[in-house]
Structures are given as C-alpha cells and as structure tokens.
C-alpha cells in the first residue's frame, strides 16, 4: 500500500506568452520504506511535480490531479490549515542549495528548535536538547557547540546535514530530497547519500530523491521514474532500468554517460530520439 499516490498530475504556469505545461499528466507512487528516484534533465518537471505536492509553487502555477493521496487522505481536498498539519511534519523536503535554504540571520540551532517548537509543541528546553540529539544523529561533530553557529560559519556539507536534521526532526513518513548533493563535492556527496540512506532505513520512511545524476540513482534507488519534458518516459526497478532500459530516452541518457563510452565519441540523445530530443 503506497504512502503517496499521485494520479494524472498536471502543472501549468501562466506566462507572458501563454500557458506553459511543466508537468503533463504524471502518475507517481511511493511505498513506505521505499527509495524512489525521479531522474531527468532540466525542464523535465522533476522538481515541479514534487513542489506541487508540497504546495510550494507560486500563484502563477495551476495544479490539477485526479488524486494526490497521502496515507489515505487526498491532499487536494484539504483546507490550508489541514494541509499544514501534513506538509512539514509528515512530508518534509530538502533542497539543492543548503546554504540558501537556511536563514543567514539566525543560528542553525534557533532554526531547528523553531521546527520542534512549532510542529511538536516542545518547550525551549526540550527543543534545545532534542536539537542536539538530532545534530548527533546526522553526524555533526561537537553538536552542542555547533548549534550556536550561523549558516555562513559552516561548510556546504554541514549545512546540508543541518537541513536533513530539520527534515527528520518531526519523524516524517516521507522525505523528498531535491538534488540534495548537486552543489557538493563528490566525497561530501557520498557522506550525505550514505547518511540519507541510513536515516531512511532507521526511520523506515519513504524517500523520494530528485536528481539528474545517474550515478546517484545507481547508488540509492529501489525504483526509478525517468521524466522528460514534463512526461514520464519510463518507470522500473533500478536494476532493470540500468540492465535493460526500455525507452529510447533512458537508453540515450545511459549511453551519454562518459563511463559507458565505447567508441571515441559519445552517442547523443538525438542518435536515439530523433531531432526533437536534440533541441
């Protein structure tokens, strides 16, 4: 039984030159304890569809779907107040730019304690103690001291750890990670991915990982959705996807990986996908 089921999700943006469809009739579902990777290049709508779930899109966006069911409740039929009890508590999200995701004017401790006080009704003292525990859980050294740091005093990897601590603070059922390691060095990327997988297993939460990086998919996902220009191209378990990709676009993506180069030139998307893919 999936924890989140989305059917026929469409997101349109009103622009000066008319409506633009960023997500075009996508179905997504994720089960408890499952890691789902949504992979695509820029313009594939991979982030927009999850921002629609979180209700984080600007007013110019029109979101429609047949249903968007989280744990038995249709998110589309909830009032704003009812939605807020789920979003940010049961479903949380982390983003690509950890330093930009944090408020530079407050200590990281203040920001995570705020989450705990507002969402879980903790007192300042309880929140402070719990924040230190969470910092420990995400592998920040000297948590009691680091909690008083401002975001600019921490590295990108550490800021992402703080974001992850905030995201798991409420014991969510589903964590959505939007390109969580794209801005980070490869050795730090490995640490953050390992941390996400460890927390996912320990807490038994579902994880949706949005990425453009097939390497990240290979290292983390149970199941994969491949998107291109707002449409779903293919959905498969991770092994089948890499072993026997069905859709020409997936095949094109995999063969464009430099490590899969066979000749002295790389095949490009247009070799597989006709002129449209090359645009």
């Amino acid at each position, binding site marked *: 039984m999936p924890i989140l089921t989305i059917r026929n999700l469409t997101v349109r943006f009103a622009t000066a030159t008319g409506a633009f469809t960023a997500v075009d009739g996508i179905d997504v579902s994720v089960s408890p*304890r499952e890691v789902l990777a949504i992979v695509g*290049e*820029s313009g594939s709508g991979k982030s927009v569809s999850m921002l629609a779930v979180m209700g984080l899109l600007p007013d110019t966006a029109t979101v429609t779907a047949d249903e968007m069911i989280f744990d038995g409740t249709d998110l589309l039929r909830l009032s704003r107040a009812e939605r807020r009890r789920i979003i940010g508590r049961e479903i949380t999200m982390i983003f690509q730019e950890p330093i930009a995701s944090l408020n530079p004017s407050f200590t990281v401790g203040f920001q995570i304690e705020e989450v705990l006080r507002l969402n879980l009704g903790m007192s300042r003292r309880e929140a402070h103690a719990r924040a230190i525990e969470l910092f420990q859980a995400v592998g920040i050294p000297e948590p009691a001291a680091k909690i008083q740091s401002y975001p600019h005093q921490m590295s990108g990897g550490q800021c992402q750890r703080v974001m992850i601590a905030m995201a798991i603070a409420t014991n969510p059922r589903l964590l959505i990670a939007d390109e969580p390691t794209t801005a980070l*060095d*490869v*050795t730090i*990327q*490995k640490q953050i991915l390992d941390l996400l997988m460890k927390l996912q*297993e320990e807490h038994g939460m579902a994880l949706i990982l949005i990425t*453009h*990086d*097939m*390497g*990240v998919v*290979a*290292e983390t996902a*149970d199941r994969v959705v491949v998107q291109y220009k707002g449409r779903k191209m293919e959905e498969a378990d*991770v*092994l089948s996807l*890499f*072993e026997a990709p069905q859709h020409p676009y997936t095949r*094109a*993506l*995999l063969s*464009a*990986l*430099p*490590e*899969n*180069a066979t000749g*002295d*030139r*790389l*095949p*490009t*998307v247009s070799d597989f996908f006709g002129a449209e*893919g090359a645009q």
Partner: protein
Amino acid sequence: MSIVVEGNALTQDYFVAGGLFGKAETIRAVKGASFAVEKGRTLAIVGESGSGKSTLARIIALIDRQSGGTLRIDGDEVDIGTRRPSPALRSKVQMVFQNPYGSLNPRQKIGNVLMEPLQLNTDLPAAERRTRAEAMLIKVGLAPEHFNRYPHMFSGGQRQRIAIARALMLNPDLLVLDEPVSALDLSVQAQVLNLLADLQEEFGLTYVFISHDLSVVRYIADEVMVMNKGEVVEQGSRDTVFSNPQHPYTRQLFAATPETDIEAIRARVARRRALHAH
C-alpha cells in the same frame, strides 16, 4: 613531440588583508605544480573545491601571474608580471569558463562576441572578421543566422559552443577549459565533449581540462593530475592513475564516485533486500 605548455614548481599566494575582525594572512592556493603537456594532448586537472585547480588554470591561461615558479608556453618563459603578453602570445592561449551564462555579455550579439578577439589582436579587415566568425559558428555546430542573436536566445549547451567558438577565433594552440561541461545536462555534456574531441583532432589543439568529474576525466584525458588543498598529490597517464591510484586521496576520490555498472547495482540491491528481510 613538442611541449606546448610547461609548468615548473608553480605556486600562487593570495594575500588576505586584515580588518576589524581578522589578522592579515597569506594563503598558498597552489603549492608547487609541475607538468608538461605535448601538442595535441589533454591534461586533466582533477580536484574538489579548494584544491587550487582553477587558480592553476588562471595562471596557465595568462590571467593571473604566479607567485613563484616558471611557466613556459612553446618553450618560451612567460611572466605576465614583468612584461605584458604580446598579441601573438595571447592568441596562443585561450580559456573557456564553467558557466556559459556568466561568461557571455548579455548585451553583445554573438557575431560581435566572436569578432572581438580578432579586432583586439589582429588587423584583419571587417569583412574578413565577419567571414571567419560565420565559418566558426558552423564549425561548432551553430549556424550563420545566429550571428545577430543575443546570448539569452540560446540554451546552455549552445552558449558553451559560443564560448568555445570565441576561444578558437585566434587559432590558439592551447585551450584552458575550466569545468566546461559541469553546468550542462548529461545529453548536452556528451555533445560538447564530442565537439571538443572533434576540434582537438582537426586543429591539433592542446587542452588543459579542469574538472571535478572523474568519469568525464577518464573519457577525455591523456594525462591526469590530482590536486588536493593546493597540493599535487598524484600525476601520471590516465591509465596508470585510474588503474592503480597511489595516493590515499585519489583512492578516496575514486571510492566516493558513484558507480553505474550493473554488478555494483546488483550487489547493492541484494544488500538492501537482506537488510529488509530482517
């Protein structure tokens, strides 16, 4: 084979001025890099942020003067601090930057982007400059009708083609490419890497290719130099470095790079299944 670019114990110091809150200090961003690249070959410099790879690239591209050590281009010692490089020397070495959105002037038409290096460094007549710019557009996979368009009308991959075209206008021997494909989508990255390989073959270009991405480096490099915190920790031919990395940092870098081969995925999936079975 002739050596196009050679560095000997190159160092770079940055002076950080003291202020209200801090003491003045000197930071050594590059701690002695030596290398030589033969004509038509590619040296890849690999490292993470803070490794000094871009600082070294700026020295090689004659943008910054090194603090110590010597740089030779085509066998001649170059020190831009004591003598301004001649137009002939400037023409020999060109650079392509990471972000094609930032490296093109949004108010300059593509045609002018390409003709400007000729205007500054040669005395070719206007008609000839235009002919060469149009020919170059075709060479990098664009079309002559793009001549009068502005950068915002192009995608990221097309802009990087324009940046490469600009760098090639002066028929350089050496191209310094600082993360030229890391801002691009995977499928566009493949096209730009192919273009670079085609151009290298056609013009006998020598590349110094800065990258953090080991799979790209493995694909494009002949020689590899690994940097960490300003230090060159390992260098050698691509095959030696990749098949038998010596330095712990290089090994750490390889271990952290995600693997996409089927056996690695199969093993991971099996581990996860076993974990869930408990």
